[in-house]
């Protein structure tokens, strides 16, 4: 393989061409993804698969199986259990007391990747004795990561790295209390899987599918341009019950004036919002 191929990085017009091609051939629209990050992902695919720009176009059109791999690489699937422990602390202190007054608590984790966040919430709800009346929906555009999420089996190496996060949340015991460990893998306890459902949902093209008391969409907006964020905020707004909660990532905020009026800030630092108005 020509070594120079690995050094190829895409130009803006080439990226534009790829976006259009993927839209036409596969029906996935990446045009409102943030460009610097998208470019990194595309450059990375070319490097990993040892493809030139022309090779990449060719396989995207002619190799149907390649697209799933492409989708997996293009969308960032890096996630952690209890990422940002302070967020889980404030969920526990500021949100769960209100959610507990509902008869049923439906939670939507949008962009759930391999399920770590869904199970983190499931653990939190269990510790607060809210498991029985809660249900968590995890959605992602990527079918492969959802398979991982449904399994709920993670490498022990990963669990070790999540253990520190868990410790910082102040929850009792240790993260391993919620897993069955076999050799170098850890499986989430079945009771924590009971109230979860994972399914495909594309935030860009799919619509409302239920009404929720809380929506968590963390570290997804960072990949979207502001206009697309607003379209998705509209979807979230309509999917929340009155006074329902919206949780964004640690560095994500609602920028649009329109939606700033429709959501009350519950925790500025952790970006927890509550739906107001109608």
């Amino acid at each position, binding site marked *: 393989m020509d070594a120079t191929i690995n050094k190829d990085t895409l130009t*803006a017009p080439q990226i534009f061409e790829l976006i259009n091609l993927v839209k036409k051939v596969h029906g996935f629209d990446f045009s409102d993804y*943030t*460009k*610097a*990050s998208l*470019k*990194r*992902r595309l450059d990375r695919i070319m490097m990993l698969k040892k493809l030139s720009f022309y090779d990449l176009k060719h396989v995207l059109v002619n190799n149907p199986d390649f697209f799933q791999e492409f989708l997996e690489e293009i969308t*960032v699937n*890096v*996630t952690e259990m209890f*990422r*940002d*422990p302070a967020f889980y602390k404030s969920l526990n202190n500021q949100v769960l007391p209100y959610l507990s007054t509902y008869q049923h608590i439906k939670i939507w984790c949008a962009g759930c990747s391999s399920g770590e966040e869904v199970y983190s919430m499931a653990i939190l709800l269990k510790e607060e004795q809210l498991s029985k009346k809660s249900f968590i929906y995890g959605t992602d555009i990527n079918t492969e990561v959802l398979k991982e999420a449904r399994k709920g089996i993670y490498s022990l190496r990963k669990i070790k790295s999540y253990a*520190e*996060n868990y410790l*910082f949340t102040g929850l009792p015991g240790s993260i391993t209390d919620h897993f069955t460990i076999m050799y170098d893998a850890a499986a989430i306890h079945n009771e924590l899987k009971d109230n979860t459902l994972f399914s495909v949902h594309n935030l860009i093209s799919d619509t409302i599918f239920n009404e929720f008391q809380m929506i968590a969409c963390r*570290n997804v*907006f*960072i*990949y979207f341009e*502001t206009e697309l964020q607003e379209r998705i905020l509209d979807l979230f707004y309509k999917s929340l019950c009155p006074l329902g909660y919206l949780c964004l*990532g*640690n*560095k*994500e*905020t609602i*920028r649009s004036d329109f939606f700033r009026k429709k959501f009350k800030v519950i925790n500025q630092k952790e970006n927890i919002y509550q739906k107001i108005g109608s």
Partner: protein
Amino acid sequence: MALKSNIIKHWQKSKVLLVGGSAGSFKLILRLVKSFPHDLNKTVIIVIHRKKNFFSEIEKLFAQNSCMPLLEISDKEKIESNAIYIAPANYHTLIEKNGHFGLDVSEAVWYSRPSIDVTFESAAEVYTQNCTAILLSGANQDGAEGLLKLRESGALTIAQHPDDAEMTEMPQAAINIKAAEYILHTTEIFELIQSA
């Protein structure tokens, strides 16, 4: 030692200063921050390797010791021209062509998130020659490739002289691949900054 006029000119016309450092760079970066005049009129973007959940007081310490405003990097935040930014822990910081910051939680690069390479490479695309980048002490190779991209796009690229670096690997890696246009001693780095 007097600096050449070329380097001073390039520094003076730079709109952005990028600083990358890891092990052994913290005190030096703090001294740099202290030395910036309030009207530096450049965007300073600092990427230091830092651990998640390690709630260090870096931002607070820098803010207390800086004459320039220290602003937080969040998603789609507009990049101001006379301000200092520090890449947040557990994210990669990218520069978007429209003058905003972008963040990314993808895989660590050289075991680091934030990675210096990631920020430098995206800065190279956007700032081209209007930028100065300094790579300081560190114990891995992060930043070298990024510095090379910056150099290729016309930026002024500087590596701290390995004799002065507490950890030599990071600046040395940049020097090895000819990513640094200049190799400066710590005193020369300060001299350059003061020449603004």
